[in-house]
């Protein structure tokens, strides 16, 4: 995939370019899924970075001290704004 201009279209974690960081602003999912994502470290206010992604499958995200792998579909539930 081609590197896009992240700041403009940025809305959720699945669209964050590899190597970029952003601040988590919320999780939009049913309660049980939201709780699970939060417990794994995806909490509002935290900074997330995309380490790598597979072409069709999951992506690797770093939040604080934790590295996670997650599907794009789930990453799309996490809204972000560009961090400075």
């Amino acid at each position, binding site marked *: 995939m081609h590197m896009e201009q992240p700041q403009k279209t940025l809305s959720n974690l699945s669209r964050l370019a590899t190597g970029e960081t952003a601040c988590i602003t919320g999780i939009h*999912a049913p309660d*049980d*899924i939201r*709780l*699970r*994502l*939060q*417990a*794994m*470290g*995806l*909490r509002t206010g935290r900074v997330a970075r995309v380490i*790598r992604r*597979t*072409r*069709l*499958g*999951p992506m*690797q995200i770093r*939040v*604080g*001290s*934790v*590295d*996670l*792998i*997650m*599907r794009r*579909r*789930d990453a799309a*539930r996490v809204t972000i704004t560009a961090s400075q």
Partner: protein
Amino acid sequence: MKRIAIVGMPNTGKSTFFNRLTGSSSRVGNWPGVTVELLGAHTILGGEAVEVVDLPGIYDLHGFSDDEQVVRSFLENNAVDQVVMILNASQLDHQLPLALQIHKLGMQPVLLVNMIDEADQLGIRIDAESLSASLNCPVVLISARNGTGMTAATDALLENMQSVTPVQPSELKAHLHADDEIVSHAELLVSQHVSSPSLLVRKMTERIDRVLLHPVLGLPLFFLAMFLVFQTVYTLGAPLQEAVAWLLELFRGWALDPLANVLPASVFGFLVNGLYDGVGTVASFVPVIILFFFLMAIVEDSGYLARAAYLTDALMARLGLDGRGFVMLLMGFGCNVPALMGTRVMRSRSLRLLSMLVIPFSLCSARLQVFIFITTALFTPKQAPYILFFMYLASFAAAFLTALVFGRRLKSDEPFVLELPPYRKPVLFQVLMRGWHEISHFLRRASTFIITGVILVWWLTHYPEGSTPGGAGTYASMMGDWMKPVLDPIGISSIMSVVLLIGFVAKEIVIGAIVAMTGLEGAALNSYMTTQMDGIQAISFMLFILLYTPCLSTLATQLGESRSWKFTGVSLAWSLGLAWVVSFCFYQGARALGY
């Protein structure tokens, strides 16, 4: 007796700590959620007998996964005198909320901050004393791998246990509800008592991942690694197996054969040709199995399994499964039963059911024994590893086909989020423990299933009186004749069909049953096998064994975990049907092509 419960997130080294504390053997996995059964042990702490329970790794006391519910209901229903929480030193920001949840419940935990060696290397400094003062509970820095801080940990544990007032399970029930303040409290604590570099760099892990998680090379490297594991099992395992067989024969010649002069012929035949040779031949495969588990333990402890999940998730998603399902398939190569229980980390029932439908097709170590035995007897040493690898491919293919067929009915929206632990050097102690665990597991099964099975087969193939042992007129050949219409079209002789019937209980019995039936062993047994089947029949037989059903324990686990007779029935019917159809197509196809 006082009860100590160990809690913590997955990947914090809970099991390692548990092993250190109790000296008993449990498996350690770097893959989140591997510890699924409740492991308990009795041990002496400070002169007092205590019971230690290792609870499943969880992220959240209020979560919805089966594991989280297990922990919750354990705490709600069992009086616990002392909670020990294990935390990963380099992830305190992530882990303290769970500690605070426990603290809030009034359980006065002892916090053991583990993997302090790893945190040290990353430049993380934790002020345990001030953190302890802020939290008002003991905090000890340990490394369960190296044993650092274990004495301080047990001291703190003992001291805390004197003063702690156990919370009544009924009180806990009232308290277990979500609390958002916890997270901000945890963040405050971390900022006050933990200093860490602004950017955590795990150089080693990142360097390895750049290769192993490479977008193009990652998957081929994974399959290469798996192929090497199985190749090693075969090339190292076969000579080991022969060595043990040789030793057992030596013992037989020295101690048992002289008994032929003393005992009546039928008793000698039963005890030595039946029981000793039967169980002995099965036992000769134990080194292969141990070797296999050693290698699996190394792969598991290194942290590579989570990478396997990352690499395979895209493929698994198409099948309606996820990367964890693939890892469970790999775990199933050891034994299907723990792999089935490992699906408890999945929250969605349909995803769990689909994974549990697929796992029994993974070629477990008991089936591996049978395949090594048959391939050694019927194929050249050059062909054998390829036939074996073909069986592994067939195992995957059956699993994928099953997922494709049932995936549409069992859809789920389960989130796929997994922690990716850093690579860790496997600890020899743990790997050895694991090997010991397998030997004791084998001995336990041997004393029940295998001996009973061998005796049963010996009886079936030697009675009624006057029939040719292993031949016409025996009960076994009568049973074989009944099954002929079904098994003839797939090239399985009537005498081997009795073996299949017995193998339904456990695949470990299969080889022992063949020995007991024929009264042969070693080279004589191998050449007997060539009279029973040719190469094509052998492969058809192996395909059938691979697919028809793993064993009674697997079925019982499927039933126990799904709590559904219908699911278990569908699974059994599907695998029996698939086994027959696949063997039929292979056998008839190969014959039609002139092989």
